[in-house]
C-alpha cells in the first residue's frame, strides 16, 4: 500500500502545474473513488497503477515518466462528466473512465469531444467504444456476450449439456449482454434446446415465482444460464439451491470471486468464465506472480478478475504509444487498431477499425465445487461474434 501511495503522491505532485504540453505524458483517471462503482474501479485502477509503475521503473514511455491525475466521479453521471473535464484540464493525454459503460460514458464523451482517447476500465458493452461513445474510445475488457457464448459452447461440448434454461436479470445492459451471447450461440449447437426462460430484477427480494417455473418443468434442465450480477446474483443462486435445484449454473464473469461464497455454503456445479485466475492456479505463472505483486502493493489479493483489465489497458496503450512514437490521438488509435492477437498477461487482444473491444477471447473456466473455486478448463469460442449480431 505504501508503495502505491508513494507513486501516487509523486505523480500527482509533478502534475501540480496543470498544462498540456509535449514534455509530459499524463494519464487521467476519471473514476469512482466513492459510491458503489468504487468497488469495481479501485482494484482495476490499482492494477493500472502497477503497470504504470513498471513502465516508469523501466525508463518510462518515450523516455518520459508517465504521470497520473485523478478526479472522482462519485458514481454519478453528472459528476462523471465533470471528472472527465477536470482530468482533461489537468493535461491528460488519455482518459481512463469508470468500469461500467453507463457510469463511464459521460467522462468518455467529454474525452471524445476533446479529441482524446478514452479507455473504459472494464466495460463489457459494445457501446463502450466506436458504436457508442465514438471512434477514440476503447474498453480493456471482453464483451459480455462472449461470456454467455463461451459458457454455452463449453457446457455443450465439455459437459454434454443439452437442455438449457435462461434466467435474465433485466437490471443492466451487462446482464442482457451475457444472455445475448448465449442466444447467439444456442442455434449453433445441434440438438441443444432452450426448455424455458424467465426474467427477474436484481433488487427483487424473492425470486420464488421464477424458481417455481423452473421446478414445474417435466425435468430439471442440464444447465441454467444465469445472466445477472452482484448483489442480486448471490440472492438468486442461494434461492435456486435452497429450492433444491441442482442443475449446473452458468454465469458471466461478474460473479467471480470467493468473497461471497460464504453466503451459499458448499456451492457446487457452478461455473464462471474468467480472464485470469485470482485463486493462485492460473496456467500462466506470470498471473500468479502478478497477484503476489498486487498484494504487495495494495495489501490484499485481487478479489475478482475485474482487477486485470486495468493492467491490460495500460499495457496495450503504452505499446501503441511506443509504436506511434507520440501520444497524439489519431496515431495511437491507428496503432491500437493494428493489434491482432497482441499477447498480454491475460490472453491475446485484438482491436480493429470496426470494433474497439474483444468479440472472441480465451477464457479460463472456474468451477466451484463444494464451496472451493478453481480453474478446470479454458475455452475460446469457435468463431468471433459478428459485430452485426452484437448490435442487436
Amino acid at each position, binding site marked *: 500500500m505504501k508503495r502505491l501511495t508513494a507513486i501516487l503522491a509523486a505523480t500527482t505532485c509533478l502534475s501540480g502545474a496543470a498544462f498540456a504540453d509535449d514534455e509530459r505524458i499524463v494519464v487521467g483517471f476519471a473514476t469512482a473513488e*466513492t*459510491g*458503489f*462503482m*468504487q*468497488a469495481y474501479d479501485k482494484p482495476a485502477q490499482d492494477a493500472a497503477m502497477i503497470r504504470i509503475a513498471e513502465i516508469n521503473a523501466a525508463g518510462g514511455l518515450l523516455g518520459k515518466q508517465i504521470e497520473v491525475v485523478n478526479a472522482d466521479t462519485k*458514481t454519478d453521471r453528472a459528476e462523471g462528466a465533470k471528472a472527465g473535464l477536470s482530468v482533461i484540464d489537468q493535461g491528460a493525454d488519455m482518459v481512463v473512465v469508470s468500469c461500467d459503460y453507463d457510469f463511464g460514458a459521460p467522462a468518455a464523451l467529454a474525452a471524445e469531444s476533446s479529441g482524446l482517447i478514452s479507455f473504459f476500465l472494464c466495460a463489457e458493452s459494445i457501446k463502450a467504444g466506436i458504436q457508442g461513445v465514438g471512434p477514440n474510445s476503447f474498453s480493456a475488457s471482453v464483451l459480455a456476450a462472449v461470456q454467455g457464448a463461451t459458457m454455452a459452447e463449453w457446457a455443450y461440448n465439455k459437459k454434454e449439456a443439452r437442455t438449457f434454461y435462461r434466467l435474465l436479470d*433485466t437490471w443492466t445492459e451487462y446482464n442482457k449482454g451475457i444472455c445475448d451471447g448465449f442466444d447467439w450461440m444456442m442455434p449453433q449447437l445441434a440438438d441443444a434446446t432452450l426448455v424455458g*426462460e*424467465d*426474467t427477474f*430484477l436484481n*433488487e*427483487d*427480494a*424473492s425470486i*420464488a*415465482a*421464477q424458481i*417455481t*417455473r423452473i*421446478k*414445474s418443468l417435466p425435468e430439471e434442465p442440464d444447465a441454467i444460464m444465469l445472466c445477472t450480477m*452482484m*448483489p442480486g446474483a*448471490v*440472492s438468486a443462486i*442461494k*434461492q435456486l*439451491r*435452497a*429450492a*433444491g435445484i441442482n442443475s449446473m449454473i452458468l454465469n458471466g464473469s461478474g460473479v467471480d*470471486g*470467493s*468473497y*461471497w*461464497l*460464504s*453466503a*451459499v*455454503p458448499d456451492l457446487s456445479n457452478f461455473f464462471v468464465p474468467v480472464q485470469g485466475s485470482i485463486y493462485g492456479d492460473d496456467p500462466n505463472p506470470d498471473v500468479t506472480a502478478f497477484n503476489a505483486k498486487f498484494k504487495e502493493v495494495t495489501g*490484499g489479493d485481487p*478479489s*475478482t478478475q475485474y482487477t486485470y483489465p486495468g493492467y491490460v489497458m495500460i499495457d496495450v496503450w503504452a505499446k501503441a504509444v511506443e509504436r506511434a512514437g507520440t501520444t497524439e490521438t489519431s496515431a495511437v488509435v491507428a496503432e491500437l487498431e493494428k493489434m491482432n492477437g497482441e499477447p498480454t498477461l491475460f490472453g491475446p487482444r485484438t482491436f480493429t477499425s470496426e470494433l474497439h473491444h474483444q468479440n472472441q477471447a480465451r477464457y479460463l473456466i472456474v468451477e466451484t465445487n463444494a464451496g472451493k473455486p478453481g480453474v478446470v478448463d479454458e475455452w475460446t469460442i469457435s468463431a468471433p461474434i459478428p459485430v452485426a449480431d452484437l448490435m442487436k
Partner: protein
Amino acid sequence: MAPIMQVVFDALSLGSLYALGALGIALIFGVMRLVNFAHGDVIAFCVFALLWPSVDAVAIIFAGNLPWFLLIPFTLAVGAGLSVLSEVVVFRRFRRANPATMMIASFALGFVIRYFLLMLFSSRPKSISLLPGLSQPVELLGARIPLLQLITILVTIAVLIGLTAFLRRTRFGLEMRAAAENFTMARMLGVRANRVIMGAFALSGALAAAIALILGSQTGTANIMMGASVMLMAFIATVIGGMGSLAGAVIAGFALGAIATVMQVILPPDARAFRDAFVYGAVILVLIFRPQGLLAARGTKERV
C-alpha cells in the same frame, strides 16, 4: 403450469415481507403522521450490525456467528434501539412540523445512516451466511418450498397475532391505539405521548430487524441499499391499506405480494420485464377507486 400451492406459498412469503414492512411504517404514521423514509435504512443497518466494520471484499462476521437464540434478540434490539434513537435525536423536534417537512427530515436521516454504513463498510455488497440451516427445501401440501419461506410466513403470522394481543390486551397497546385514533384527544386523556411514540418507534425498529433477518438469510447479502425496494413496496401498501390502519397495511402488503407473484406467473415472457409497470398501474387503479385506502383509518373499525 406451476402447481397452485407453490404459487400460493410464493405469494404469501413475498407478501409477508411487504406486510411486515408496511406494519413498521403504519405504526409510526399512526402516532405521529410521519412517513418514515429512514425505515429501509434501518433494515440495512440491522444486517450490517452483524458484521465487523471493514472495507475489504470479504466480510468479517461479528454478531452473525451467534447461535440463533442470541442472534435474533440481538438484531431486534439493534433495530429497536436505532429506531428509538432516531426518535429521540431527530423526530422529537418535528412533532409540530407538517408532513412534508417530516418526510424530508426522515429521508435526510436515512441518507445519513446509509452513508455512515458506506463509510464503515464501503459500497461493496458483503456476503453473510445467516441462519444457514434455513436454506433447505421442505415438502408441504404437495409443494416443495425452502424452509425459510415457510418460516417467513409463520413468523409474520406470529408477529401479527402477537401485535394484536399486545395492542388489545395491554394498557400500552390501548394507549397506542388511542393515540393512533386521535393523538391530541388521547394526550388530553392522560396518554403519555412520548412513551407511546417511543414504543411505536421501538416496535417499528424491531419489525425492521425482523425483515433484515429474513432478507439477510434469503439473499445471503448485506447491501447498503437492501432495504430500499421492500420499503417502497411497504410504503405503497401502507397507503393503499389506508394510512394509519394497521390491518389495512397488512392486507395491502399481502395483496401486493400476491399481485407481483401472479403477474410473474401469468405474463408472457416478453411482458414479464414490464411486471412492475403492471403492479404500479394496479396501485393507481386502487387509489382511484378507493382514495382513502382499502380500510379507511378514521371511524369505527377493527384494528389488527
